[in-house]
């Protein structure tokens, strides 16, 4: 296993570097801070042979992204977040992605591995010799462990709204030296969202929707990320009443859903749980719902509906198209 060997040799280098620091500090009272750059130079991932001139234009390194300083253009990126993977490929940094987590299945050329973003295994991540790791959550002491082995981590948690997606895209552009690529994606998304929202039918009252995450009626409130996307098209969630208790992903009572009678039903549990527009018609009492009678049910791609990437534009377009047919039916 080359990966294991690489990891082993890397560890030897690290141990050697640590030893040299200790020896240097003991022998001639050199401060560890001064010895540290030497240790970095001994790291094979640092690629000391490469001169600054080889770095393509655009990004002038080092760059600072949030609190993270990146010394040189990343060439071996590990993405532990499907959303980040989609964004990296969209801005043109896909070539630098050497490994992506088990759920990063889009775009097709994404190098999906069995790495997990939920239970990150730092040894397995380090075996890829990444010079940048992107993740959405700091689970299982990921940040501390990666810092210990000297691998920079860019954390991109779930954004609150579309502006947050633009910020993530811009950060990724800065980090990977694809600043122009990121700017292109952002302006394209902004233009498309604006045209979709402009084309959306005008209504005085916001339309209501029920967005189903799982067959046992887990839903989202309007203040979740996807809820904010829907809000762009003047849609609000029937779950907002339940969200007052502080849980943005409440489990709704079926009788409440019938009582609320939403204008739209958005199914984000089609692939996972075999729920379809047809199957919810069979649920007790659901045949009386306005959305079911009118057929205002959208079977969503739940990957798109659970990630924050450029594809949210498609999600918004599908929903607004359904609003158009809803108006035609009235």
């Amino acid at each position: 296993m080359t990966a294991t060997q690489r990891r082993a040799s890397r560890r030897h280098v690290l141990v050697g570097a640590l030893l040299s620091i200790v020896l240097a500090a003991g022998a001639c009272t050199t401060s560890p801070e001064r010895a540290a750059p030497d240790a970095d130079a001994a790291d094979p991932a640092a690629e000391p042979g490469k001169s600054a001139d080889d770095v393509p234009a655009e990004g002038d390194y080092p760059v600072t992204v949030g609190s993270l300083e990146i010394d040189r253009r990343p060439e071996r990126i590990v993405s532990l977040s499907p959303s980040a993977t989609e964004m990296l490929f969209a801005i043109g940094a896909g070539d630098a992605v050497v490994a992506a987590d088990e759920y990063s299945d889009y775009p097709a050329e994404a190098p999906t591995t069995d790495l997990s973003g939920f239970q990150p295994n730092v040894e397995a991540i380090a075996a890829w010799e990444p010079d940048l790791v992107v993740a959405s959550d700091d689970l299982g002491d990921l940040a501390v462990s990666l810092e210990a082995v000297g691998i920079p981590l860019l954390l991109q948690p779930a954004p609150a709204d579309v502006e947050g997606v633009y910020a993530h895209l811009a950060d990724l552009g800065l980090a990977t030296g694809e600043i122009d690529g990121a700017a292109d994606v952002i302006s394209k998304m902004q233009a498309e969202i604006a045209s979709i929202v402009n084309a959306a039918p005008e209504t005085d009252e916001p339309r209501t929707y029920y967005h189903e995450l799982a067959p046992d009626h887990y839903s989202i409130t309007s203040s979740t990320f996807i809820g904010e996307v829907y809000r762009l098209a003047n849609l609000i969630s029937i779950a907002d009443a339940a969200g007052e208790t502080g849980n943005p992903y409440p489990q709704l009572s079926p009788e409440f859903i019938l009582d609320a009678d939403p204008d739209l039903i958005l199914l984000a549990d089609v692939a996972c749980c075999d729920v379809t527009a047809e199957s919810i018609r069979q649920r007790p009492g659901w045949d009386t719902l306005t959305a079911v009678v009118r057929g205002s049910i959208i079977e969503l791609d739940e990957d798109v509906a659970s990630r924050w990437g450029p594809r949210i534009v498609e999600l918004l377009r599908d929903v607004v198209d359904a609003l158009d047919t809803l108006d035609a039916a009235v």
Partner: protein
Amino acid sequence: MSSTRSTRLMRRCDVGDTTVAAAPPTVTVRDVPVQRLSPRALGAAFTLLAGAVTAGLLFGPAGLPAAGVLHALVDAVPGIDLPGGLSDRQLSILWQLRVPRVVLGGLVGGMLAIAGAGYQGVFRNPLADPYLLGVAAGAGLGATLAIVTDLRAFGIPLAAFVGAVVAVAMTYVLGSRFGGRSSASLILAGVAVAAFFTAMQTYVQQRHADTLQEVYGWLLGRLLTAGWNDVRTVLPYVAVASAVLLAHRRLLDVLTVGSDEARALGVPAGRVRLAVVVAATLGTAAAVSVSGLIGFVGIVVPHTVRLLAGSSYRIILPLSLVVGAAGLIIADVVARTAVAPGELPIGVVTAFVGAPFFLVVLRRWGAR
């Protein structure tokens, strides 16, 4: 009062034992003294159930008007025609969601409670609950496998049921093979099997984090997807299992003196245990397959009945059935109104109420 009763019982049976050893048995099963179920206790239990059903039908996030609900219920009585009161949608909320949910809550609660009482009787262990021999762990693994694989088409309830039965069968085989059929060895085998199945379930769940929410929701227990289909699935099992358990109520009383003593009295302890375990397991597995894992009902209800009404299984079994039904219906009212219009998992409600209650029961137990 109950302590005098049990000493009397013990003394009588000690006499029985020595008689058996010395001479042909003159003591029979009928001589084991037991309390009879008083009409007053039964009346109280049914009153509780009626109250629970009423609350279950009247309270819910849809806010159906109470008068309208009563109107619709009277209208449903054959021969009485009293239309109006509720809109079509409100009627479908009542008849398609609320009524089946109350009925299912009653069936599941009653089943778990009477199964718990049966287990406590055959194992003579106050800590026994319906999940003692691995039902919960087996059902959990079955349901999880169904959720994460293509077995979904096969049905989560059926997968859970099969998992539960397989786990208990394994417990029985392992317990009797390695432990010589004593109840302690069965319980220990149950612990081992449950741990093993739970480990497998956790592993499968962990490998499929994308379905975590659904698995989690199932494990915590719920009645919310209930429709008449679930009621139809569970009803035959609950009916047969309860009938078998109730038929063994006298024999369980005899077993309270110990299996050797019971054998001396002509009661085949092993066969009684098998019948009770099979009935309780099938009934519990059926209940769990539609409702997920609802804890504490099977422990709290029989002990409450025992403390309040008497320790004979002629009292405990029937009353547990009725009180368990009432208890779970009330817990479900809490589950669907506490954070309305959201839902609390009903397993959280029963454990939240059940855990402190259980401590009280233990304290009473220790005080004796």
